[in-house]
């Protein structure tokens, strides 16, 4: 067996790490460990020169194991693995110690933080001794794509891919395409017709010879892995199986139901309606109250269910500009009506939206500001002397007065929620959900349409509230990722998979039961379990379930983890 030669690098991350943790002390402590040939500290390990140092050390000192103590491995593990590869070392002969996110950024006491860092690095060192080289494997990519959701996002993604000449399966649960966009009359800030935009897209999708549309269809099951997925879809009671290489999830949104907000008396007072209900009226060109009369006073209330811990803490992003759009439409339909726009912060952020706000301000609309921390506006039925159907009362922020607004019709700008199917689709596709049930992207900034599951992309409002234009851009971005992958033709797959030692496996089949990906099958002849490496995602559950210890979860083997534990606890009584 070759001699173990470990290089250890402690990153300062500028001052992010170095200001709390004594990096030089760690480097010194680690230098004392067995098999550690090099132990350095460096300002920015992730930088080009940092990586160059690492590569040069590997080459000069014949290092065969590397430990970098820096930020979270979720950020830079790939970076350093690439550097190892560049130096001719197997990228898995590497271990990171997270001394930033889980140390210097969360602790205050320098001594403890440093001691903890030493422990983490020692753990990494003792773990890396047991690392084994793992080799990359690649699989062919099926050029077909499944798009889940037939709203504007799904349609755009489908078209974008089909127009590049690749097969698309578009799955829609309802009986029609178009989603929420089809229910919208106009868009902001240019007052374009949503219908006029989406109708041709729908017919294009329906008539495209490379797009197969599945309406009234639900997904029963998704199996496979990046490049080679298959699914069972059920349509009209019959099941069929389709295979494809990538998935774009665009399950869209659901409007929040304001029934739960007592102040607004939605469904109690008949003339309190939601934005979607107003859209219908606008499409028909007649806005009227429940008794059929023309409303003289109309109020639009923003942030209904948004920006409020009780309902949704997040901002629903589109409502402010949508409210401005309604103000315009109501003004043209009812030139003499008094319009009140009750907002919290006017978030007209998009291109042309601030100008739209300015122009709307000139249309004789009374803008009133409220602050949720002073309570929500309260709607009550008016008295006969009030000369209006309802009265809204609240504390107006810009005048500092408690005011009453007489109204006949109230429009609630309801929040945007993740679609109710999002959870189920997330389960099938392996996407993670954030606290608000929107999908979590692989990286919120740099990989906003990818997910942690390879080959599964998200686009549109399933990721978070956004406007039609923004959803379209996201749909295209997701399509770009898919097209890239199709163009490449093959893709490297997970290497840290499970491995069955056939010498030990006795065929109890417990592992088969626990595998979430059906990646393990039973070989009757040999009486052993067999792992399909392309299907295995490396969760390690089988490894921890196997009673004989025949299954090794590569890169997370028993010995690796046990040594890591040992390393972690070695520093017990040392002090600086």
């Amino acid at each position: 067996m070759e001699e173990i030669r470990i290089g250890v690098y402690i990153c300062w991350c500028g001052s992010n790490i170095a200001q709390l943790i004594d990096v030089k002390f760690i480097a010194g402590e680690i230098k004392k460990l067995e098999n550690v040939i090099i132990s350095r500290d460096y300002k920015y390990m992730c930088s080009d020169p940092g990586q160059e140092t690492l590569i040069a050390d590997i080459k000069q000192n014949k290092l065969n194991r590397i430990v970098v103590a820096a930020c979270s491995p979720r950020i830079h593990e790939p970076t350093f693995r690439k550097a190892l590869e560049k130096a001719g070392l197997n990228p898995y002969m590497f271990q990171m110690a997270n001394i930033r996110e889980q140390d210097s950024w969360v602790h205050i006491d320098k001594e403890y933080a440093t001691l903890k860092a030493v422990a983490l690095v020692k753990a990494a060192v003792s773990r890396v001794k047991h690392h084994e080289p793992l080799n990359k494997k690649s699989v062919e990519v099926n050029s077909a794509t499944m798009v889940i959701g037939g709203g504007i996002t799904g349609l755009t993604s489908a078209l974008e891919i089909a127009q590049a000449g690749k097969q698309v399966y578009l799955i829609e649960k309802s009986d029609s395409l178009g989603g929420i966009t089809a229910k919208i009359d106009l868009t902001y800030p240019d007052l374009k017709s949503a219908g006029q935009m989406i109708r041709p897209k729908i017919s294009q999708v329906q008539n495209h010879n490379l797009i197969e549309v599945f309406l009234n269809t639900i997904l029963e099951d998704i199996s496979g892995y990046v490049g080679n997925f298959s699914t069972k879809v059920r349509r009209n009671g019959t099941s069929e199986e389709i295979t494809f290489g990538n998935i774009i999830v665009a399950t869209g949104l659901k409007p929040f139901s304001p029934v739960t907000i007592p102040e607004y008396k939605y469904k109690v007072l008949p003339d309190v309606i939601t934005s979607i209900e107003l859209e219908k009226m606008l499409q028909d060109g007649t806005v009227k109250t429940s008794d059929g009369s023309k409303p003289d006073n109309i109020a639009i209330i923003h942030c209904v269910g948004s920006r409020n811990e009780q309902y949704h803490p997040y901002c629903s992003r589109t409502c402010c500009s949508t409210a401005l759009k309604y103000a315009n439409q109501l003004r043209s339909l009812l030139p003499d009506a008094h319009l009140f726009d009750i907002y919290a912060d006017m978030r007209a952020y998009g291109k042309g939206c601030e100008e739209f706000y300015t122009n709307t301000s000139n249309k004789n609309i009374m803008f009133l500001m409220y602050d949720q921390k002073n309570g929500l506006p309260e709607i009550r039925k008016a008295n006969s002397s009030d000369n209006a159907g309802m009265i809204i009362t609240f504390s107006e922020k810009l005048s500092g007065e408690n005011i009453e607004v007489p109204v006949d019709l109230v429009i609630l700008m309801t929040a945007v929620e993740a679609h109710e199917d999002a959870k189920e689709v997330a389960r099938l596709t392996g996407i993670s959900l954030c606290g608000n049930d929107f999908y979590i992207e692989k990286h919120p900034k740099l990989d906003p349409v990818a997910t942690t599951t390879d080959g599964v992309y998200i686009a549109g409002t399933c990721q978070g509230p956004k406007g039609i234009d923004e959803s379209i851009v996201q749909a295209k971005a997701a399509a770009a990722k898919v097209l890239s992958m199709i163009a490449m033709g093959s893709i490297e797959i997970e290497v840290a998979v499970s491995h069955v030692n056939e010498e030990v496996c006795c065929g109890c089949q417990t592992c088969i039961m626990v595998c979430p990906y059906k990646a393990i099958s039973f070989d009757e002849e040999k009486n052993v379990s067999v792992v399909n490496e392309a299907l295995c995602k490396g969760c390690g559950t089988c490894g921890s379930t196997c009673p004989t210890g025949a299954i090794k979860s590569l890169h997370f083997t028993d010995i690796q983890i046990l040594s890591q534990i040992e390393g972690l606890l070695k520093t017990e009584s040392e002090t600086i």
Partner: protein
Amino acid sequence: MTFEPTIVSFLCNWCSYTGADLAGTSRIPYSPNLRTIRIMCSGRIEPTFVMKAFREGADGVLMCGCHPGDCHYHEGNYKCLRRYHLLQKYIVQMGIEKERMRLEWISASEGKQFAALADEFTETIKKLGPSKIKKVMETLT
């Protein structure tokens, strides 16, 4: 000197480790007693690791996974939960206070909760005092 426990935590890569990272990016301070081992899924946590941690001197062991239903690998966290119950019974039999071992769900967005958990668990362990397992195992006659 006050007793500063050493706690080994096993965090799943997708939720809990990310949540712990979030505590970091959000700079939510918590007690420095936690030493983390990242695994891909809480389903990978097996009793052996916990025993080993206690054996090597950990005063407490914390296991964290995604919330039920949120597991990146569908239901690894449930598997962890089932083992946890059995393991708990076992460690009690072995004379270890069951409070020394915890299984909690931390999602990727729960940086705050993670920090609070770390503090609270550290407090619990501090109250229990140092674990004597390592010493006992080493002084076996």
